[in-house]
């Protein structure tokens, strides 16, 4: 095995011995497809009929007028089949799985979007599928759990640790080390041991490539700023990839501020001073951990951002200054979501709403010849229980009570 790929001092491949052969095969296969035109074509055909790629870049005229500052564009990853950018990565890994001849796929999921995407890919490719999901996330993203099961996947609630994304990742690795012969672990974000950060970024970079073309097409110039929420970092790396070389484009990663980064309840690894470098879940990056190296509990209203680590590529881009990191807290995200819904008729996922929140803050104070792009990584349908609770929607509560009575009868 080679040493895992590093980005500055971040990355690497910290895996148990039992997985070494599996990783060698994976890296080998990934290297083969990276520059394979036929693979690219197959992938793009798949994404343009199974999903609706290229996804639109949408000019948010009303929000632009509302803030009376920069022109606001929105990249519509929410329109993807299964409702988020997660499908881009999963379908790519799905094609790899077929090439490797494996018959089973496992995945972790936080928001459930990666789980639904993986279960969907498994249904399409005829693979067995098991999804690990923290028990806390099972509760807050129930509709997605339901759909995964309908798609034929087994959803395993993980009751260990903080019962969120990181614990689901651990469990998925535990499954993998026992079943790697027939099983691929389709990691859902640009984290984990090499080659995952690179590979997930590679598949997600389709977002940035399209966006670059689209904005030039609309405006004949580059955007001033690009905003993306950062859980593990896959949607952010996806859209940032299209602009990394354009130094004049400011890239802004938005993390979960939870109850505020001045409290301990947040998941801001790069936007706060609370994280430090560590090695866990197979890679080296900034983690929210204590001085002993034990991972902290994190908090976010958005399950998909509620994670202790972050893409090693982003940790590096943070250190080099190429990407600026900000945090938006729960309340701000919900407010931003509500504004986007009411002004434009689009429903961002709770995760995406964080990117909206930060973009809104900055749009106000920009001039009208600036252009802002927000990556709408997903749609909010899955968040109905969370949003209803956030808004204390009485009719919803009444409806749920009514349904429950029916079930109790």
């Amino acid at each position, binding site marked *: *095995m080679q*040493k895992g790929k590093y980005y500055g001092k971040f990355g690497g491949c910290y895996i148990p011995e039992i997985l070494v052969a599996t990783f060698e095969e994976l890296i080998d296969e990934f290297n083969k497809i990276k520059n394979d035109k036929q693979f690219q074509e197959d992938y793009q055909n798949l994404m343009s009929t199974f999903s609706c790629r290229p996804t639109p870049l949408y000019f948010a005229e009303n929000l632009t007028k509302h803030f009376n500052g920069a022109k606001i564009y929105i990249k519509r990853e929410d329109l993807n089949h299964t409702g988020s950018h997660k499908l881009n990565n999963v379908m790519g890994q799905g094609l790899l799985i077929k090439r490797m001849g494996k018959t089973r796929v496992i995945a972790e999921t936080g928001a459930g979007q990666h789980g639904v995407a993986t279960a969907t890919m498994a249904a399409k490719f005829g693979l067995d599928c098991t999804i690990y999901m923290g028990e806390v996330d099972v509760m807050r993203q129930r509709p997605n759990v339901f759909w995964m099961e309908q798609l034929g996947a087994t959803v395993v609630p993980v009751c260990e*640790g903080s019962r969120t994304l990181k614990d689901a990742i*651990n469990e998925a690795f535990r499954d993998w080390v026992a079943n790697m012969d027939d099983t691929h672990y389709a990691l859902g974000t640009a984290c984990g041991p090499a080659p995952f950060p690179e590979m997930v970024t590679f598949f997600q970079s389709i977002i940035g490539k399209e966006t670059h073309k689209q904005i030039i097409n609309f405006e004949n110039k580059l955007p001033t700023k690009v905003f993306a929420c950062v859980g593990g970092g896959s949607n952010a790396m996806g859209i940032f990839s299209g602009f990394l070389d354009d130094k004049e484009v400011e890239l802004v990663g938005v993390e979960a501020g939870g109850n505020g980064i001045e409290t301990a309840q947040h998941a801001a690894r790069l936007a706060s001073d609370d994280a430090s470098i560590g090695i866990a879940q197979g890679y080296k990056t900034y983690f929210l951990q204590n001085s002993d190296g034990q991972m902290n509990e994190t908090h976010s209203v958005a399950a998909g951002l509620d994670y202790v680590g972050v893409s090693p590529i982003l940790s590096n881009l943070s250190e080099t200054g190429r990407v600026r990191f900000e945090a938006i807290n729960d309340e701000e995200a919900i407010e931003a979501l509500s504004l986007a819904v009411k002004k434009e008729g689009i429903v961002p996922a709770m995760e995406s709403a964080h990117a909206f929140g930060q973009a809104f803050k900055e749009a106000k104070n920009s001039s009208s010849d600036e252009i802002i792009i927000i990556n709408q990584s997903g749609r909010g349908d899955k968040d109905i229980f969370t949003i209803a609770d956030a808004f204390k929607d009485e009719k919803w509560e009444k409806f749920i009570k009514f349904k429950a009575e029916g079930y109790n009868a």
Partner: protein
Amino acid sequence: MLKDYINEKRQKKDILLMTHIVIGYPNIQTSYEIIDSMVKAGVDLIELQIPFSEPMADGPVILHANQKALANGITVQECMEFAENIAQKYDIPFLFMSYYNILFKYGLKTFISKMKEIGLYGAIVPDIPPEEGEEYISLMKKNNLAPIYIFSPSTTDDRMKFVQAQSDGFIYSVARKGVTGANTEFSQDLDEYIERCNKSTDLPIALGFGVKSKEDIEYLSGKVDIAVIGSEIIRIIDNGKLSDIEKFIKQIGISK
């Protein structure tokens, strides 16, 4: 020197016994008592696991022990003190087992010097493959500590040669795919694998993952140098009676 200890002991015993504890589980006081029982029962080496919040390679039994110990507030500092106390008290080799982040956050150099200072013999760190572990390996070796590396059934012959060259003390050979604590079938497949392990290194071989009965150990006896009992002992602790540990180890132990 760990290797020498093992080879020497093997003159007297067909197979050595290595047991495992999670420091601070179920609490630090009991950990002392468990070690005492183990040593009294004649265990040859002991792995001391410093709890980590993300023990990716461990199955449910050890995972819960890690979490419980952490929930009780155990710190790395306390683990060091514990290790120091028992290493001074008992005359067998103690090893640390943990995940790399524990060493890294402590400061790799400091951690390793400290290990040396308190009299440990080596460490098993399952998530630092040799390719990523250059600094770790060289610091360990510089301090005469054994960086114990792992063979698995999926490790190729070539790779075994590479891995054992980085390792010292012994090779920790995992009996099967998967995490700690599940059943292992002690069958012919295993024999072939053990043979591969023995062929590829001069280091003693410790076999772990799923060893839990007198029969298992008899089966392994003569094939490997050390049998490792991990989760099974925690199961005994969980079932309540500490005195059962000594009984259990004595019952399964083999003397020449």
